[in-house]
């Protein structure tokens, strides 16, 4: 069985370490991710202005491509793309006036009214495979790995598109349990990492990251588990700055959830592209016997 899948720009370049292990893992789980033909950039952020319908065209075109494949569900993996596509879909479903304007503007496309369901890969794992079934597929349990789920913003806000409870999300915790790890809850797990402020105010990012990283560490986490390429970039970069600024600051390895999935399923670690991680995970993985001592990679984030 295959699922229609939208990758987005970042997963094809900077975040191949998010996509590669996802594609390999889903194939191993028997639900192949089938990339949409002719997908385009979703626009990265959802347009918040009432009169700005032009920026809704890009995400809606992708939804139309999914429907052309005869699919009623579109799987996303990048947190930004998930948010933008799901919000645009909701707009097309619920706002008749704006839907008509957008459909009229795209007169070369068939009319669209939100028929495709946008889901995140974590929802597929929870709702279509199930934690119990997933745990039975685990070949290399992540025993003794104290991993803190970090959600960021895009999977949980606004409320109408959230993949789980906005206040007390459990999906990453349950995912980690299914892989045999020991999830570590911490109160800053949904706090923003600074997002696109990295473009205009890069010097502010360490102050966004500091409470998140310190909180995870003080709750006993050995690593942070991420879903978003911008969280990886911001938190990874900020750690390098914080080491210089704050004496005694301890860097924390950062993983994408898909990398831990691939490792637990016993796949070749090379599908994880660990060299692209911004928070260096190599020594922790070796310490936990999740990576053979002979494996080596040069992380870009030091």
């Amino acid at each position, binding site marked *: 069985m295959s699922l229609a899948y939208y990758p987005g*720009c970042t997963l094809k370049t900077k975040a191949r370490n998010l996509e590669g292990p996802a594609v390999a893992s889903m194939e191993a789980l028997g639900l192949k991710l089938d990339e949409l033909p002719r997908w385009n950039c979703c626009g990265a*952020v959802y347009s918040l202005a009432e009169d700005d319908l032009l920026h809704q065209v890009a995400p809606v075109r992708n939804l139309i491509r999914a429907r052309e494949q005869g699919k009623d569900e579109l799987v996303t993996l990048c947190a930004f793309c998930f948010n933008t596509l799901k919000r645009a879909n909701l707009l097309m479903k619920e706002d008749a006036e704006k839907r008509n304007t957008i459909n009229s503007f795209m007169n070369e496309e068939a009319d669209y009214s939100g028929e495709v369901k946008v889901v995140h890969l974590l929802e597929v794992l929870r709702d279509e495979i199930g934690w119990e079934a997933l745990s039975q597929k685990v070949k290399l349990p992540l025993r003794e790995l104290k991993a803190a789920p970090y959600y960021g*913003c895009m999977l949980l806000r606004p*409320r109408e598109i959230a993949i789980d409870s906005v206040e007390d999300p459990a999906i990453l915790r349950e995912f980690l349990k299914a892989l045999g790890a020991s999830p570590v809850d911490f109160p800053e797990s*949904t706090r923003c990492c600074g997002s696109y402020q990295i*473009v205009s105010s890069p010097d502010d990012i360490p*102050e966004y990251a500091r409470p998140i990283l310190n909180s995870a560490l003080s709750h006993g986490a050995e690593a942070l588990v991420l879903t978003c390429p911008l969280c990886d970039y911001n938190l990874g970069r900020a750690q390098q700055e914080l080491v210089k600024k704050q004496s005694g600051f301890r860097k924390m390895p950062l993983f994408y959830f898909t990398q831990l999935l691939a490792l637990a399923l016993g796949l070749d670690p090379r599908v994880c592209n660990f060299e692209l991680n911004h928070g260096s995970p190599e020594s922790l993985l070796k310490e936990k016997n999740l990576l053979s001592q002979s494996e080596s990679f040069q992380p870009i984030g030091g």
Partner: protein
Amino acid sequence: MSVTVSSKRLRREFVKKVKELSGQNLQLCYQCGMCTGNCPAAANMDISPLRIIALARLGLEEDIAGSKTVWICASCLACTVNCPRGFDLSKVMEAIRLLTLRKNVDRIRPEDIPPQERCDLPQIAMVSGLRKFTG
């Protein structure tokens, strides 16, 4: 911090535009401060998120225009999901940003981003940054 409210300072067109672009009823807010309390960037802002709403509905455009608050907002929506009145402040922040950007006044210039940084940044950062800070 006190503000002077007078008909001379009231910019009715500004209030109308903010309402139109955001789709939000500015009178809904009862200034409880949940937005500010939940904002991860509030400490860096010169005008707090709840005060932005107060100034916007009084039409005090000049007070807001000189502030860096809307440019520090990362649209993380912590305010939106925690508002007891169902008010979406992220849309008001966007409306105020757009009123500047649509005058062809950009907040950043891509050429000012160091080349190595431009090369390293993930695409979602570049695209969203340019969407939020340029017209």
